[in-house]
């Protein structure tokens, strides 16, 4: 017996999660919170992949989720490195203070 809840439910849940993440990314100004919102959107995409992999009987969807997780881990490492080096120089900086690349 495979998962019998209709995939539509999972897809709608993922759409809601993506919407919340996108909204948060636009309204929050703390770079760390903005980063967490990106993670929320990535998880929404993962949920969609797994729901469709189960429904369509194609394991490639789960492989794609695996790669998304690897890329997300690398992205978090690089992004947090950038945030640390910015905030070390300018404590309490928000995204609005970072409008220019010049240090």
């Amino acid at each position: 017996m495979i998962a019998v809840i209709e995939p539509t439910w999972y897809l709608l849940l993922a759409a809601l999660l993506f919407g919340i993440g996108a909204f948060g990314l636009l309204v929050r100004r703390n770079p760390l919170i903005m980063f967490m919102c990106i993670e929320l959107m990535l998880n929404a995409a993962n949920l969609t992949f797994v729901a469709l992999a189960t429904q369509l009987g194609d394991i490639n969807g789960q492989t794609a989720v695996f790669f998304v997780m690897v890329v997300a881990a690398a992205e978090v490492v690089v992004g947090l490195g950038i945030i640390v080096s910015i905030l070390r120089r300018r404590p309490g900086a928000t995204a609005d203070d970072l409008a220019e690349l010049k240090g």
Partner: protein
Amino acid sequence: MTDATFLEYVVFFSAAVMILGGAVGVIIMKNPVHAALGLVLTLFGVAVQFVAQQAHFLAAVQVIVYAGAIVVLFLFVIMLLGVDESMDLSIEPIPIQRPLAAVMGVGIVGLVGAAIIRARDALDINPGTGVANASDTGNNDANVQQLATNLYGDHVFAFQLTSVLLIVAVAGTVLMTRKWPRDEHGSSADHESSDV
């Protein structure tokens, strides 16, 4: 396909409440530590949904990599930089930003949701080769074995490239965040604390 049992609906909706509650927590919490804990709640909820869809390996990796490594990294950075509670959410630097963002968020959910509901009949096809799962085959490792065959068979080149990606990410981060020693002329190699 049989109808879902009551228990499966209970699992789905409680995990959905966890996911959405955690996500809302991430964007409304003032304290970044609380936001990170909301993120943990969301990630666990997603792991529960993975288990409910028989993606056991991905659920384990979700808990270990996301809820373990990534959130710990977030908390580590928050603690390293000091918790900044002065962030006042009532300040709106750009007056119309929040209404516009809300319109965009609702728009995304509305458009994608409408597409999903319209396409629900297209999804109702007969599953093809099928994703192996433990309860059908009686093999508890069916999901892991099928995923491994696919990953190390069809996608082995991409898998090799991810190792390059991870090395580049780690080396780049170390290079980026280290403090460069000052040279003999007294000028700093980067502008460590030289400007505001």
